[in-house]
């Protein structure tokens, strides 16, 4: 999406973050811009990027967030694929007869790592049957987990006990049945962790620091073959075995990816929700600002010289199916709590913005195939508008940069937004007026920075 907004035009999100329009959300219920940093993210499903099997969060937790059937290359981390081989072997019933024996092994398409490198036997079936990688310290990790679970439980019991006893002091009579609720809760806290986990945790011991450490592997100091040792990335991606040599690499189960949905923190409505099926790239709800807010782009910037007035050309595009009236307001008028302009310290130049309202026609998907006989809208100021094509309008304005570098202008985009209200069978349109601060960094267009 960088093609559309190569970090030139940034909209200011409600939270103050500067983001290009295509990564912003637009909450239809609060009528405000939201960005990835000021919405709540929720994990919908976990899925395997290779076989696209999907599962719920608890299931994924049980499976330790990996796919049980797919494996990844220990060298480059991409999914391994299955290759078949056929070998002629003597038949079991009649050793003089040769039969074709099909066997499968896994291989990395990129670096050609294969299960033969790990000296694993070929499998008779195309998928499955591969041993799951057992971490060398698995038991110890399990022990520690159980131990800390019990510690956490005890801490919670103590904390709740304190709270309940405090509360109980106030409720002398049980007029409202509150005491019984509290008592029930108190009872529920008495539930102790399972016997097995208690047993495991009892065996837990504190780790001891040792002064004796292993020597450096001699191969590294004497005869080093750079092709046989692992690089830092391979070691970090296999933290449990930390392989030093390529021959020590072991394939691991492919990690699951998640599908996330975004929700407005203020009103709790969903801003984006994808379809559950991991194979689908469609959305059930997609409130991207790109589809609702007029977008500003920079069309032309001449060579910028400090102190000289130049004309720049912008375009405004209306992505909605309703006409939009746009006004460009100066940044300074913004009622900032800390005084004018200080909210946007990156603005170095104030443009002479066109006065009056500009009307952007609605987006018409079918119009693209028609003859583009575009009539100018008489309501628009002809001295400002440079061209009109469908739902897009070109406008010009003068700027006088104070310096030749880091020229950034700011404006407030005031536009109408047609909101559809559905109440029962009634469909009503309501026209709102929204204002978004927009920052345009023109230094990308400076002649000397463009490599011709």
């Amino acid at each position: 999406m960088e093609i559309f907004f190569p970090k030139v035009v940034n909209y200011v999100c409600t939270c103050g973050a500067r983001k290009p329009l295509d990564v912003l959300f637009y909450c239809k219920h609060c009528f405000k811009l939201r960005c990835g940093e000021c919405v709540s993210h929720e994990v919908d499903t976990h899925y395997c990027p290779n076989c696209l099997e999907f599962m719920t969060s608890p299931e994924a937790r049980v499976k330790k967030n990996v796919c049980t059937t797919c494996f990844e290359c220990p060298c480059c981390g991409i999914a391994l694929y299955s290759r078949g081989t056929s070998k002629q072997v003597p038949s079991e019933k009649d050793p003089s007869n040769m039969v074709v024996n099909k066997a499968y092994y896994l291989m990395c398409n990129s670096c050609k790592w294969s299960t033969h490198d790990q000296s694993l036997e070929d499998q008779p079936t195309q998928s499955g049957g591969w041993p799951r990688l057992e971490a060398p310290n698995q038991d110890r990790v399990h022990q520690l987990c159980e131990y800390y679970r019990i510690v956490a439980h005890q801490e919670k019991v103590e904390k709740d006990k304190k709270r309940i006893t405090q509360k109980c002091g106030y409720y002398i009579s049980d007029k409202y049945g509150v005491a019984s609720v509290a008592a029930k809760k108190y009872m529920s806290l008495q539930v102790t962790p399972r016997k097995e986990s208690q047993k495991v945790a009892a065996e837990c011991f504190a780790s001891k620091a040792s002064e004796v450490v292993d020597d450096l592997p001699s191969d590294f100091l004497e005869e080093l073959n750079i092709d046989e040792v692992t690089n830092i990335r391979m070691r970090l991606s296999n933290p449990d075995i930390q392989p030093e040599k390529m021959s020590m690499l072991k394939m691991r189960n492919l990690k699951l990816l998640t599908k996330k949905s975004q929700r407005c923190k203020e009103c709790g409505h969903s801003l984006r929700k994808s379809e559950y099926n991991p194979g689908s790239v469609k959305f059930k709800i997609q409130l991207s600002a790109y589809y609702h807010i007029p977008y500003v782009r920079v069309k032309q910037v001449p060579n910028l010289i400090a102190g000289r007035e130049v004309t720049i050309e912008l375009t405004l595009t209306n992505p909605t199916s309703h006409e939009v009236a746009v006004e460009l307001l100066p940044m300074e008028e913004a009622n900032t709590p800390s005084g004018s302009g200080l909210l946007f310290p990156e603005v170095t130049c104030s443009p002479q913005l066109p006065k009056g309202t500009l009307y952007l026609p609605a987006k018409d998907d079918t119009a693209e195939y028609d003859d583009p006989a575009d009539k100018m809208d008489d309501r628009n100021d002809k001295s400002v508008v440079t061209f009109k094509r469908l739902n897009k309008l070109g406008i010009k304005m003068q700027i006088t940069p104070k310096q030749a570098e880091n020229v950034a202008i700011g404006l407030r985009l005031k536009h109408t937004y047609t909101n559809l209200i559905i109440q029962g069978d009634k469909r009503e349109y309501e026209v709102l007026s929204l204002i978004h601060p927009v920052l345009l960094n023109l230094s990308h267009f400076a002649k000397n920075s463009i490599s011709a």
Partner: protein
Amino acid sequence: MGDSKQETNPKVLVAQGSTVVRDCVIQGEVTIGTRTVIHPTAQILAEKGPIIIGEGNIVEEKAKIINRREEPLVIGNHNTFEVGCVVEANAIGHHNTFECLSRVGPLVSVGSGCTVGARCNVSTEEVLPDNIVVYGANCDRKISVDNFRTSNPQIDFLSKVMVNYHYVIKPNRTKEGNAIGAE
């Protein structure tokens, strides 16, 4: 167009059992071994010295094999030159794979069982030892154990199917009329 090409380039020697499509570019002194398949739009350019291609090689579409030196470029057996690769190496062993859009420079001598991964580049002055795999965006290297694959089933299929859709260059014969390379 294919017809005239064979006439104007008498230096091309095509062995019996190979499948060389006429719609490829063969320049200079080129020998093509048996069971080798040359796809259309492939380019084999022997600009000065000859290029000698062994048995069971596959040269795919838009692959380029160039010899700019005086000495001959000898290519061994069972190599695969995938779509769009540019190979200028000064020697090539057996069972190598040059994946799509890979590049091998003129100062490289390739051993056997090597793979130059898709879009990877080897352009230093060096001898690429046997069984080296060059892979990934950073052209990382590693040794691969089982790299001695042959694409025999694919060659069988191609040599059967390609003649149905393309004109192929007829194999040269000795003066006595015997087939070359079919022994």
